[in-house]
């Protein structure tokens, strides 16, 4: 009942769905783009699976081009994220919802506006200083060469 092709397609569909959940729910700009990349992984896996099913290389060539577009998209998206961050000093995507209809309310529920509990302090290990600080010569070392020439190192 279950074929070898089918289950790879199922995994690809699962990757796409998980990426879609991340894109719809997360509010961090960086995580939005990571979710989009996860969806592109699902699409690429589908292309490769169909390429194996038909025994041609066309699907793999298509995935190479989608890889190129993903690289371009990542560079541009990160430049855009940095530009937006310089304007608003925050990575929240809710600050950039100007294009929605004006009569819609803020798309988060009021219970989400409660203050955030800060994370507990983490204990980081500290290294005890060992040995003595190295002493470097502060003056250039003059090396005598043959003859009267001398050069500084």
């Amino acid at each position: 009942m279950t074929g070898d092709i089918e289950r790879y397609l199922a995994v690809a569909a699962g990757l796409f769905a998980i990426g879609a959940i991340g894109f719809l729910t997360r509010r961090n700009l960086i995580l939005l783009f990571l979710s989009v990349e996860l969806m592109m992984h699902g699409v690429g896996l589908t292309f490769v699976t169909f390429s194996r099913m038909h025994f041609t290389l066309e699907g793999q060539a298509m995935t190479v081009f989608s890889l190129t577009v993903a690289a371009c998209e990542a560079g541009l998206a990160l430049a855009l994220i940095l530009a937006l961050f310089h304007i608003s000093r925050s990575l929240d995507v809710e600050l950039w919802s100007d294009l929605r209809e004006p009569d819609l309310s803020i798309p988060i529920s009021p219970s989400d506006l409660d203050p955030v509990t800060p994370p507990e302090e983490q204990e980081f290990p500290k290294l005890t200083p060992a040995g003595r600080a190295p002493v470097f010569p502060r003056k250039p070392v003059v090396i005598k060469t043959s003859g009267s020439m001398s050069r500084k190192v």
Partner: protein
Amino acid sequence: MTLFTLALVAIGIWLQIPRSRNWPRWIGMTAVILGGIGQFLCLRIPESPLVNELLFWLFGGGALFFGVLMVTGRKPVYCALWFAMATLSTCCLFLQQSAPYLAAATIIVYAGAIVVTFVFVIMLAQQAGATAYDQRSRQPGLAVVAAFVLLGAILTVLNQSSSKLIAVTPPPASAPSSDVAAAEEADAPAESDKPAVEVANSLSHPRPGESLGTLHGTGRSLFGDYLYAVELAGTLLLIASVGAIVIAPRRGQGT
């Protein structure tokens, strides 16, 4: 059975998505793992060798598991690392599907370039401590329902059409079929006047006796059938790099 395990995974993801009053993490994770195991039991092939089954379980399940961890994580740096792990698992799935060039390129581009750039941006732009937009999410119930209705529809269609999803057996090396003959004639310039059968993208088919996805075959396909597209992709990369430099915020004078 399939839909039941899907619902279990959906509930698990919904429980883990960050919100104002968080459920304990292990409840959602247990639901996701149990549902995933049930889902993969539905996808089992009894007659295939054990190694294939193990590799598929390891990497397919790993890709989905790390994807769930990435989507529900609360710290962006950890999310980037889980994304790198999901990428590696997907690349291993590419390798199993006889696409070694694509697997290597994906590892280099994604895990080597994109994830590192993301981590750089996180270090440049992340605020210290917990931020409100990482601890809250928009409409988690609606998003989970929408995504899993889509996934259930896709899996149902796959289940019903599994009789048609059968891999084509490669043509034997001794008896070239019409596709292969056309591919050979396209290679030979002397006989290219009247090819016997016109096949679209004839260079993208592996030669008789050649396995799928060799470097030779991939290069022949990319620089034969898709030569103009490769040049366009290079131009696109150039334009994107220029655009990124233009868009990126520049510092003041003198620094």
